[in-house]
């Protein structure tokens, strides 16, 4: 029985659009329904990389695309709703405006989704495929536009701001990736797209500011990744939910005066009325505490604030009545942080050599603080961490440690400190080939006493815990505190990451000693009489990069 002839043509269309260009063209010989589906597919997708194995593939690919589009153009009743093209070029002259011509056809056909990706085979940076800005401005019906590795060429250098010629007012989602676009062309584009919802710039050059001066009633998110933009000004975006600025910014010295080398970094950010802005992310931004403080005051509904690698931050004072999640990563100069955030649920520090001095003016009883260390290098860092834990003793603290340096496992004098309780300790990757379990756990338990301990269970550890546990009855006196901790705790395990936690008790282990070899993650819960209701935290409030480590 032929299954495909029963299927509605839409399904064949969908399958064809997901096939590589060449396989889709081959499908035409399968049967007449497939040929019909191929010829009427409104979702066109052409990818030159499917042709790479053939000789003279470039010319063949161009002919295939050109033939197909010409056929669509001739048939007036044949719509195109989506167009995706991935093409390579080494020499602009070889095209002779072919891509512009194709895009014109697409525009005539009122396609709503357009995606163009041009790979340059010569790898030289300025040699990007030049696309006429007018071609883009003419896209009256396009709602989604994605451009990759092009150079948007503005023929007329005169100001064409607000000109009638720009018809692409229906644009909702704009993504520019590795695109060269002039300030003027960009300003014209943005100011004319009143319907725009999401804007994303990645590795773009040619402009240094984004001024969203007109009212953009539907703008939801603005994301800037590695573009040399120094100035962002958003006047009125009432629906905006998220603002993201991520920069590499490696080529300046963070410790010298920042007047001279802000070249690559955002240094002015003006946000007018964005009553709904919920999420703000800054990665490698040259803002300092004062600017941030001013900004936070304006953001009346921000719920999530992310500060990564913001190296000018020395002191922050965050007061917000709405903030729930705050994440701070590698802001090395940060020495003091004051939080006046009554609704705070989750505060996360990651890869800070030392935690800033923290003070809370008001904090919710639900707030949970996660601290994440990639590596604990030396005793000094350990003592800093302990000091911070002392400061945080009234809070619920989750601690994640990946590795500890070898020098620590032989350090003296840290074992006699009073224990500090933390809620949950995760040892995400415990590699300690040279150290013994004893010295490793001595260090771990000198930092804190976890109410719950989660760790990856490798073969060696499995064997160790099995031995310890099975000999418990014969050897009743366990001197070492952490051995006692491990053995007297309630143990749960997972065989795979996605599984649920299962209980493991001594009887099970006696019955089947091999069970421990299949365990992937194991956790130990301290059984306490006065069990507080501490597990009520909401997991979504932990940033995703931490959540996967908690798994």
């Amino acid at each position: 029985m032929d299954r495909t002839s029963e299927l509605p043509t839409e399904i064949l269309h969908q399958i064809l659009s997901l096939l590589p260009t060449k396989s889709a063209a081959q499908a035409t010989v399968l049967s007449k329904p497939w040929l019909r589906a191929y010829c009427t597919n409104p979702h066109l997708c052409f990818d030159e990389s499917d042709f790479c194995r053939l000789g003279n593939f470039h010319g063949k690919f161009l002919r295939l695309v050109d033939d197909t589009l010409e056929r669509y153009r001739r048939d007036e009743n044949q719509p195109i709703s989506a167009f995706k093209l991935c093409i390579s070029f080494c020499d602009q002259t070889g095209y002779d405006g072919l891509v512009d011509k194709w895009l014109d056809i697409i525009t005539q056909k009122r396609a709503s989704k357009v995606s163009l990706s041009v790979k340059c085979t010569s790898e030289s940076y300025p040699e990007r495929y030049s696309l006429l800005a007018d071609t883009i401005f003419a896209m009256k019906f396009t709602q989604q536009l994605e451009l990759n590795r092009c150079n948007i060429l503005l023929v007329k250098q005169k100001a064409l701001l607000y000109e009638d010629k720009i018809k692409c007012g229906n644009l909702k989602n704009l993504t520019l990736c590795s695109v060269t676009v002039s300030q003027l062309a960009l300003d014209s584009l943005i100011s004319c797209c009143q319907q725009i919802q999401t804007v994303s710039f990645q590795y773009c050059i040619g402009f240094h500011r984004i001024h969203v001066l007109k009212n953009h009633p539907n703008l939801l998110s603005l994301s800037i990744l590695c573009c040399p933009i120094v100035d962002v000004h958003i006047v009125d975006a009432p629906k905006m939910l998220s603002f993201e600025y991520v920069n590499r910014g490696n080529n300046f010295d963070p410790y010298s005066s920042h007047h001279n080398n802000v070249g690559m970094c955002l240094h002015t950010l003006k946000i007018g009325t964005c009553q709904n802005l919920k999420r703000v992310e800054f990665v490698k931004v040259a803002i300092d505490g004062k600017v941030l403080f001013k900004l936070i005051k304006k953001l009346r509904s921000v719920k999530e604030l992310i500060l990564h690698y913001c190296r000018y931050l020395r002191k922050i004072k965050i007061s917000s009545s709405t903030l729930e999640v705050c994440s701070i990563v590698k802001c090395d100069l940060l020495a003091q942080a004051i939080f006046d955030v009554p609704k705070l649920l989750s505060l996360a520090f990651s890869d800070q050599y030392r935690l800033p001095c923290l003070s809370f003016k008001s904090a919710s009883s639900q707030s949970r603080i996660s601290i994440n260390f990639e590596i604990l290098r030396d005793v000094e860092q350990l003592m800093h961490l302990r000091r911070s834990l002392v400061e945080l003793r009234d809070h619920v603290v989750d601690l994640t440690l990946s590795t500890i340096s070898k020098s620590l496992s032989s350090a003296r004098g840290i074992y006699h400190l009073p224990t500090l309780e933390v809620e949950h300790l995760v040892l995400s990757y415990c590699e300690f080939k040279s150290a013994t379990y004893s010295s490793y756990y001595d260090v771990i338990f000198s930092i804190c006493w976890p109410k719950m301990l989660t760790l990856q269970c490798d073969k060696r550890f499995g064997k160790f815990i099995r031995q310890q546990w099975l000999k418990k009855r014969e050897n009743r006196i366990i001197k070492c505190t952490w051995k006692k901790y491990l053995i007297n705790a309630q143990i749960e395990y997972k065989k795979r990451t996605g599984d649920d936690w299962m209980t493991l008790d001594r009887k099970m282990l006696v019955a089947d000693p091999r069970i421990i070899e299949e365990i992937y993650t194991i956790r130990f819960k301290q059984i306490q009489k006065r069990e507080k209701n501490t597990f009520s935290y909401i997991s979504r409030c932990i940033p995703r990069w931490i959540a996967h480590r908690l798994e």
Partner: protein
Amino acid sequence: MASTTETKQKKMLILKSADNDEFEIEESVGVQSETIKNLVEDGFTFVPLPNVYTKALIKIIDYLKKHANKTDSNDEEIKTFDKDFVNTTFDDLFELVSAANYLHISCLMNMLCQTIADRIKDKSPEAVRKIFHINCDYTPEEEAKIRKANAQAFEGQFDESLD
């Protein structure tokens, strides 16, 4: 329209497959299907599905239940589930794709079409015909003509296996 939060009791729906088997599911699970959602909005709680057979419906209900409980933390779990879900025979995939199309579950449609496309992409037309049991309705002359028209697509090596 009655609001779902009014009573604590969950609203239930009954789905009836083409083989006359009935399944009870929560309304919140069912409305991921546009077809069911439209019927529910019109006040139906009993949904006959004359184009969906029991075997496919059981799998689809599983899928809907899993995806109804989507949160940030069980992302990995759902990925594993999806992977297992599509790891089946071509016949089953087609059964599911027709059902998903009828029920208008777009995320499931995308996933199934992607799976089908991935599995046939490097195969020769002859192998694809066998897999789908396609009756070739071309005359040899017609087929030769089509092949000639798209000549650039028929160069290179093909995978002739049928799985």
